[in-house]
């Protein structure tokens, strides 16, 4: 990850951060998000999309941010990148420290210089994320032309090398082709090539495989893993798919209603969830030995971000919710076990499978609320009305 012009392309660079120039990681800690708050101010009200999100990312680490639509995962990514549309989005609190420096406080121009060369992003739908009227090689080469001042032929040569690195067959010929002439998987590779062009230290992948077939998914995830290993990048993987995350992630942060509910090592999280929401997610994965039983979905729907319930935002749907959960302040994200953070009053009980943990409402109870027409503010409806603007979170 040097700044020299020659190395943008394929070969892994062993000489890492010391020669990075301005940006140097702090003992391997690349990115620190600290109590980030983001709100969307719309005509109909203020939607609190992110409510105090904190996490860390180290070199060579893969952090998966897991959550449903409307949980705020894409907004977090965009806030880090600094590409939120403001208005209507406003960052109202917190810091994002890259290599120790709060990039939220940088000038627009400096911020722009961080995007691309230092922190870059891959989006979900490569067809709409790539400009349809320019050849793919041109779009990749643009990184070199604009950030490194390379000329056309050199930058194109780099583009070809990148395309080869991401395993696009016939790269030299296809560098002049247009996005719509590639298959979905190939397009995603092109986006990845564009994102890693300048050897960024942090790569954020926002649902990179959601729009792809399962087999292609696996290939792309493998490619990301390889690239990360090669370049010691920190990878933030944003997804709602538990399956995808299992193989690739080192740590998982589970998001709900703009907050992190739980953060833990991937393996431990799957083995034993420390938060009722995570437990609900894991339980909802259909299993063969459950054949014939009702699927254990989490009842209810995510909250309207303009009217987040007081206390823990998950309490209306939580099987273990008690009075303390329903009043402010919401449970803080705290260490409930070594290397595990969770935002729940009862995490320890949950982790220990303690019989003291009582089920206070079942899925049926939650659903019954909805049945009776007792209006339950619903995120989906507001997404429909365009009030919560979360790019990348399609209406599902």
């Amino acid at each position, binding site marked *: 990850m040097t700044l020299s012009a020659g190395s943008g392309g394929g070969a892994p660079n062993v000489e890492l951060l010391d020669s990075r120039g301005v940006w140097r990681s702090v003992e391997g800690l690349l990115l620190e998000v600290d109590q980030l708050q983001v709100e969307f101010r719309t*005509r109909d*009200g203020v939607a609190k999309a992110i409510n105090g999100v904190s996490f860390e990312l180290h070199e060579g680490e893969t952090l998966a941010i897991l959550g449903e639509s409307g949980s705020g995962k894409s907004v977090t990514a965009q806030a880090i990148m600094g590409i939120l549309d403001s208005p209507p989005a406003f960052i109202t609190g917190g810091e994002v420290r890259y290599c120790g420096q709060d990039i939220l406080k940088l000038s627009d121009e400096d911020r722009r210089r961080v995007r691309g060369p230092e922190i870059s992003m891959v989006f979900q739908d490569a067809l709409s994320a790539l400009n349809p009227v320019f050849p793919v090689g041109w779009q990749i080469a643009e990184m070199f032309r604009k950030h490194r001042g390379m000329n056309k032929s050199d930058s194109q040569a780099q583009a070809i090398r990148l395309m080869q690195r991401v395993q696009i067959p016939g790269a030299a010929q296809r560098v002049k082709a247009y996005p719509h002439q590639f298959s979905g998987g190939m397009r995603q590779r092109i986006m990845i090539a564009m994102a890693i062009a300048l050897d960024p230290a942090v790569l954020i992948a926002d649902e990179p495989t959601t729009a792809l077939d399962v087999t292609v998914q696996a290939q792309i995830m493998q490619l990301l893993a390889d690239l990360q290993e090669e370049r010691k990048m920190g990878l933030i993987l944003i997804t709602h798919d538990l399956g995808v995350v299992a193989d690739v992630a080192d740590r998982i942060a589970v998001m709900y209603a703009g907050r992190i509910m739980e953060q833990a090592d991937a393996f431990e999280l799957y083995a034993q969830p420390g938060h009722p929401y995570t437990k609900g997610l894991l339980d909802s994965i259909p299993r063969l030995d459950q054949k014939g039983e009702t699927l254990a979905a989490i009842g209810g729907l995510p909250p*309207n971000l*303009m*009217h987040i*319930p*007081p206390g823990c935002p998950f*309490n*209306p749907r939580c099987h273990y919710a008690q*009075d303390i959960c*329903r*009043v402010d302040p919401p449970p803080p994200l705290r260490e409930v076990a070594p290397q595990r953070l969770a935002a729940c009053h009862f995490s320890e009980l949950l982790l220990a499978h303690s019989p003291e943990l009582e089920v*206070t*409402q079942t899925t049926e*109870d939650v659903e*019954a*609320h909805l049945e*009776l*027409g*007792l*209006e*339950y*503010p619903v995120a989906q409806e507001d997404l429909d*009305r*365009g009030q919560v603007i979360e790019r990348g979170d399609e209406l599902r």
Partner: protein
Amino acid sequence: MTDTTDSSLDTTSVVPVTTDAGGGLEAPLQAPAKGEKARSLGTDVWDELRHRPMFWISAALIAFFVLMAAFPQLFTSTDPHLADLSKAREAPSADAWFGRDNQGYDVYARTIYGARASILVGIFATLFVALLGSFVGVIAGYRAGWMDSLFSRIAEIFLGIPLLLGGILFLYVFPNDPLTTPFLVQVGKVALVMGIFGWPTIMRLMRGSVLQVKPNDYVQAARALGASPTRIIGSHILPNSLASVIVVSAINLGAYISVEATLSFLGIGLQPPAISWGIQISEASGIGMIRAAPHMLFFPSLFLSLTVLSFIMMGDVVRDALDPRLR
């Protein structure tokens, strides 16, 4: 222990909840947002429109001119066909508010009565275009195949003739005879001519709409359930397309009024003794006339422009209200 099951939609207070001993049903954990109720597209649009001043301005203008067209007597008691040559080209005065024209007619009266031609042509032409265009568009889109190709080709052919040129051609070949053709027939002809060359735009719009909606799952589901094409078109496709057709039609209405005036201006649309703003402006725009009696030009121009403006503004406002991204 308080337990409210009142889901009154107007409360915004948070209701703390408890359970009763048996772990039964609780009240909603917070009341719904203020004013939230089932919203259809119609209610949504109306809500949007209500708050836009442009909507009310254009609605008022449209109402004003439609009233003028329907009941000119409300606005003037002077006979527009009464000419007093001795007072030709008289400037505006207490006697004739907009002055008199080259033949001594009262400009104000003629301007008021001129609204009728414009409004009628606009309405007829727009209705014709909307109905014919929608009908053909829906068939072409829904049936696809050779019918689609055929109708699309035909539409292309008619699109190949610019509206004004086509109007000139047809009205030249089937002219409005100044003395013998009755008013309504003249109006009808002009409207028809615009309809003949205007329907392809709506047809394309409708067809595009149908093609967009047809592959959707809910349409396939309806077909699988045995719904007849009429029902599918009526319940699923039309509501989705209606919005854009309405917007385009409103704007077209303004355009058609403008074209009618242009045709009359060129001497080929409505013929005297029919009264049209286009004819008035035509008579007013020789060089000598402009210098001598600019009021002849000004007032009909003003009314014509305002009428066209009101329809186009309405179309604009409705389109903005329908655009979910602008909310």
